[in-house]
């Protein structure tokens, strides 16, 4: 037993069990009030809306293993399992974090516009009747589980920046803390009732700010804290399995219909608009990147077209409930131009090792998407939204700009400090030798591919 006490994963698991016990106690108190609730008039559940939201939640969950294949194909073969493992671990870890306290911190009763309270700890008061403040026609738990999938994929996006060199135990602790002190607060500011960016009128339909800028900027901070991989940039082998990356990108595109379409929280006109413009932006962005490759490298590349398409999906995310088809095409074209410059020029110039371009695609693409929402948003699409600059309301652009700056600064600073602390406490990087051998074998004692049989 003594040797286990020294290991960080042991404490990690012990803390997890303790939280579960507390949650069970808290939830037990709640049974009586739930019966009382039934007598009060409740908003009607719409079966169509609920069906679509639950379907969307499943689609968004699939995006995390899709991302695992997208990223996994891009690393060297000795690290493919480490990527798949990190993504899968987040599906398990963040789910438990979310139902215990993450959802409450994000969407629970507001404290000064900054964070939700712990009143909904262990899903206390999060039942099967609708919560009209968030979604009036679906069970509160449907909204909760849909949001859980967003909380899972956001830290997964970051891992592209520190791929192939992070210690697995530190990764687990980092992800849990990052979800709690970065994702949950930012989610509350933008989407929580009482959140200060929501009160400002910042538009973020499906998570451009909360998910993509947040993760993208955190990715840049982690690339800077962890430093370059050995041999970067000249001695890093090319992607070991581009077909995996294409499979992942294709499934991401598919899942994104749930990500954006589901964010309408219903199955009507708004969901349709989000679905359609999501598809258009991905197509426009993939096409643009292919053309840029053709012009500058004399060949259009597979990695280029899928990177562009994913960039388009990122950029349309905040805008999908507010822009029309024309806006979507411009957003798609713009994102490939900006992300292309970020990965081909900016990264080289500054020399940071954002291994899989998590910042270059999700950070830059997310920032462009949030700002572009302030340009092309129109009330003709969504009366509950706002008009953007091109529809006569320049103020919206500056509201978007503020939300971008606030999120980016907060995410960068907190991620940077958090990783510095973890580096000091438990070490963030795998040992030099482990990194050379590969994370699959050294962190997980497994190999992705066998040589014989």
């Amino acid at each position, binding site marked *: 037993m003594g040797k286990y006490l020294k290991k960080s994963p042991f404490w990690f698991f012990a803390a997890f069990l303790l939280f579960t016990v507390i949650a069970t106690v808290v939830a037990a108190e709640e049974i009586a009030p739930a019966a009382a609730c039934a007598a009060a008039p409740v908003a009607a559940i719409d079966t169509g809306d609920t069906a679509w939201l639950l379907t969307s939640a499943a689609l968004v969950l699939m995006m995390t293993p899709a991302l695992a294949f997208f990223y996994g194909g891009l690393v060297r073969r000795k690290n493919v399992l480490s990527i798949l493992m990190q993504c899968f671990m987040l599906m398990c870890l963040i789910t438990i974090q979310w139902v215990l306290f993450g959802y409450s911190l994000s969407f629970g009763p507001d404290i000064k516009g900054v964070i939700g309270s712990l009143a909904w700890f262990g899903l206390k008061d999060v039942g099967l009747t609708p919560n009209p403040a968030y979604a009036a026609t679906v069970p509160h738990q449907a909204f909760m589980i849909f949001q859980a999938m967003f909380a899972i994929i956001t830290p997964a996006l970051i891992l592209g920046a520190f791929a192939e060199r992070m210690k697995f135990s530190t990764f687990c602790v980092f992800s849990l803390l990052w979800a709690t002190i970065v994702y949950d607060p930012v989610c509350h500011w933008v989407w929580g009732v009482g959140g200060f960016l929501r009160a400002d009128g910042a538009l973020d339909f499906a998570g451009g700010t909360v998910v993509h800028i947040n993760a993208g900027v955190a990715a840049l901070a982690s690339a800077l804290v962890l430093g370059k991989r050995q041999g970067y940039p*000249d001695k890093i082998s*090319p992607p070991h399995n581009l077909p995996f990356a294409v499979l992942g990108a294709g499934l991401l595109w598919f899942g994104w219909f749930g990500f954006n379409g589901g964010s309408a929280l219903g199955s009507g006109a708004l969901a349709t608009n989000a679905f359609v413009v999501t598809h258009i932006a991905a197509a426009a962005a993939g096409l643009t990147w292919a053309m840029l490759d053709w012009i*500058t*490298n004399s060949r259009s590349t597979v990695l*280029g077209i899928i*990177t562009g398409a994913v960039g388009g999906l990122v950029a349309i995310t905040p805008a999908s409930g507010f822009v029309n088809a024309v806006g979507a095409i411009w957003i798609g074209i713009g994102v490939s131009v900006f992300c*292309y410059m970020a990965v*081909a020029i900016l990264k080289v110039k500054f020399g940071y090792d954002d291994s899989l371009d998590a910042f270059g695609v999700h950070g830059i693409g997310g920032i462009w998407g949030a700002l572009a929402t302030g340009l092309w948003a129109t009330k003709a699409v969504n009366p509950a939204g706002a008009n953007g600059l091109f529809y006569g309301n320049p103020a919206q652009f500056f509201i978007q700009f503020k939300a971008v700056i606030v999120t980016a600064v907060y995410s960068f600073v907190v991620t940077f400090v958090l990783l510095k602390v973890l580096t000091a406490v438990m070490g963030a990087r795998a040992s030099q030798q482990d990194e050379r051998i590969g994370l699959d074998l050294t962190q997980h004692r497994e190999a992705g591919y066998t040589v014989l049989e």
Partner: protein
Amino acid sequence: MKYIVAIIQPDRMDEVMAKLEEKQIHLVTVTPVMGRGRQKGISEVYRSHKEAGSLLKKTKLEIAVNDEFVKPAIEAIVGGARTGHVGDGKVFVLDLQECIRISTGEKGGPAIG
């Protein structure tokens, strides 16, 4: 008995196999390998970053032959793999001390064919 090792361009493989077939040489072991010679390869581009590509994809053939088949085998490989450019590859001929057919235990020349 000789052991012939040839490094050739992967895209010449079909042609070399056809020529070997013409000379009644059916036994060959093929491996995909990485290597480099004097020529520059096609550098790959990933998100606009050119890979130097210091090692190139090649195909290695290994053929064990009796003495009378040495010349035909070399002719077949050179004939099939030659384009006249640098990078066409090399043929190495090694002395072969022994050969044993596992299924019957035959040794030497009869075991090769």
